[in-house]
């Protein structure tokens, strides 16, 4: 487990809970709602039904309809009322049912939530955490599979956070909710139930088989802006987040490559120190994300590594990404940056 993790309340002795990512997210919401009466949860189908992915299950029953409620199908409206609630002093946690649905709310996120503190010189803030499942690999077609994180990392005033394990999902989500800036919290829905090796034709391994599913009860936080060392290695650095963390780990294991894999966890603010330290040591850097390639967050990472670690590099920085097409339904696995694409890039970077 990462050494940065500060457990503010120790888990009860002798109990070891193993949760999947959905349960961990639900637990984070439960813990923060219990501690802070200003935390409210809203979104399409999140109330009585508990969310289409069940992340808010049981919360309305426990905290009542004024703190956990369904909303109209209006992402613009959901983000906008969260801005108003934040200005009042609440700490809203709106859910956008799929990241692909977030675009009608973009003006309210980009021009409003992200700008309130700046334009009012701190008089008004938008302390909201927008939760949204993102990424593909579940046969969601082009409107239920996208990874739009780079749209948000491009916006000044927004933080973008993406967990890759149940333990991180809980600790990071609590940090986000307690943060006084607006945060986009993208949940990699492919790994809600178990990590993904990249082999879609192999059965899913449930989270409970992995130690990262051990989720303490009660309150703990993982600071934003701190990457997680997934594996340590000297051959190359691999920067990834979300689902791809597990895919690159599986590929490296399969190929017998000793990679320094960093799970970035937070894209803004980015853990640049961890990235620099790793690349300076290995001299090689591979960046992997599922989102489309052009102007993706990988381009930013590539530029940063080149600008800051150039004289340590022994090979050009490589990117492995989704293709610059919409996410195709039937050809989903041809789009997905799977083991072949990643393996090829590793071979290339190691041969230079």
């Amino acid at each position, binding site marked *: 487990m990462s050494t940065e993790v500060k457990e503010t309340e120790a888990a009860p002795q002798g109990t070891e809970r193993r949760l999947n990512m959905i349960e961990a997210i639900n637990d984070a919401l439960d813990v923060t709602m219990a501690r802070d009466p200003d935390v409210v949860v809203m979104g399409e189908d999140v109330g009585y039904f508990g969310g289409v992915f069940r992340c808010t299950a049981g919360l309305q029953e426990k905290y009542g309809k004024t703190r956990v409620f369904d909303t109209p199908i209006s992402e613009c409206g959901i983000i906008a009322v969260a801005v108003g609630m934040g200005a009042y002093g609440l700490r809203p946690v709106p859910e956008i049912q799929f990241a692909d649905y977030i675009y009608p709310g973009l003006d309210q996120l980009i021009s409003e939530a992200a700008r309130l503190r700046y334009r009012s010189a701190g008089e008004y803030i938008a302390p909201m955490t927008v939760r949204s499942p993102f990424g593909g690999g579940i046969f969601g077609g082009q409107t239920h599979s996208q990874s739009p994180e780079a749209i948000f990392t491009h916006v000044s005033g927004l933080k973008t956070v993406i967990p890759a394990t149940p333990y991180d999902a809980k600790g990071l989500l609590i940090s986000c909710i307690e943060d006084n800036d607006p945060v986009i919290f993208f949940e990699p829905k492919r790994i809600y139930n178990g990590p993904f090796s990249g082999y879609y034709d192999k059965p899913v391994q449930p989270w409970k088989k992995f130690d990262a599913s051990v989720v303490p009860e009660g309150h703990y936080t993982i600071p934003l802006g701190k990457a997680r060392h997934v594996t340590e290695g000297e051959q190359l650095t691999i920067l990834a987040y979300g689902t791809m963390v597990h895919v690159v780990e599986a590929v490296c294991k399969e190929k017998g490559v000793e990679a320094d894999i960093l799970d970035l966890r937070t894209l803004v603010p980015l853990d*640049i120190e961890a990235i620099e330290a790793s690349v300076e040591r290995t001299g090689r850097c591979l960046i992997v994300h599922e989102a489309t390639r052009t102007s993706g967050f990988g381009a930013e990472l590539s530029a940063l590594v080149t600008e800051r670690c150039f004289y340590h590099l022994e090979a050009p920085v490589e990117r492995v990404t989704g293709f610059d097409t919409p996410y195709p339904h039937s050809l989903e696995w041809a789009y997905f940056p799977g083991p072949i694409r990643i393996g090829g890039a590793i071979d290339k970077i190691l041969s230079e």
Partner: protein
Amino acid sequence: MADRPEGSAAKGDNRPTLSLHVPEPKFRPGDTVDFSHIDVPEAGSMARPDETCDPAEMRDMAYGLVRVLGEDDKAHGAWDPKLDPDTLRAMLGHMAMTRAFDERMFRGQRQGKTSFYMKCTGEEATSVSASMALAADDMVFPSYRQQGILIQRGYPLIEMINQIYSNKGDKLKGRQLPIMYSSREHSFFTISGNLATQTPQAVGWAMASAMKGDSRITATWVGEGSTAEGDFHSACTFATVYNAPVILNVVNNQWAISSFSGFAGAERTTFAARALGYGLAGLRVDGNDPLACYAAEQWAANRARANAGPTLIEFFTYRAEGHSTSDDPSGYRSAQERSEWPLGDPVMRLKNHLIAIGEWDEERQEKMDLEAAEHVKKVTKEAEANGILGHGLHHPFRTMFEDVFEKLPWHLKEQSEQAIHERETKFPGGLDL
């Protein structure tokens, strides 16, 4: 290329040819203006429904026009808010101050003291009178033409001018376009500059107030042109779904820069009638009648406070000046419109009313106008000591990077150092960095 050449139909198709309607205002520059098509009901002729009534029982309110001040300058009918003379004089004073402020700031922009200004001439009642009907701690989410609210709420003029000049006294640190004020202390939300975004935010604030069992309500203002934005639809939907204690004020001043209200749908129906489809209470009000504006806002505030639901108010008014300092209205509309506007001028109407009831006279009016102009002039001078736009008396460079986030992340720290370095290069050993 179009599917089919213009005017052609598929073979054997006897369906009629379609044509597109593009709205056109009745009058363009040089045209003689005749507003006789505007239906102006007699003052006092509209019934006043109970504040808790079902929106379905007051549908006619969305098509009529609530008017209190008649041709005789007296107050008439059930909507007369029966304000005492001191309150009426205070209202007149705020409106006169707003007008004096607008005159001075407009001139300041023309003199190169700032980049931009917007007057609210002719629309003063829609902010001043409406604001007076609210409690001082009711939250307001204004658009950009409600300076009257700040003046009515006693926000210091010098703060407004500092903001307009983006000078070192500007508490918004010179970050916002002039007139995009913010004052949490005065329950005045930070003005966006993007249109209609504040309307659903106001609903969210009202929902929060209701969720917390608070007693404060919310009012928001939006122009008729930007009711076309999706945000307005979101606001109406959330307001009605959650029965939020909010007042949605639509200021129909007939013009959105150069586009007349027809481009927001005014050729077909009223803006107050938007309320009906949502099941909101809708009121259409003479926006140049300060007493009607007060009475309507008070009605809606009472309704919201009684948990009886939100109200959509259309203030039917006229934008007597250009949209801002950046446009010349003589290029797109007839100059006669202002003088021919059938609902008159709100300041004149209130003044005449006070005179008609024996509580005011021309002499006092003149004195008040003069004092307002002099006060604004004096405060403007004070503000100018803090600098005017582009003359160096702005906030230190490092402030550019503050408030993007609560804490400065590494990338902004690096960029801040870069900016300070550039400043030092340009002005060695110079000003506050």
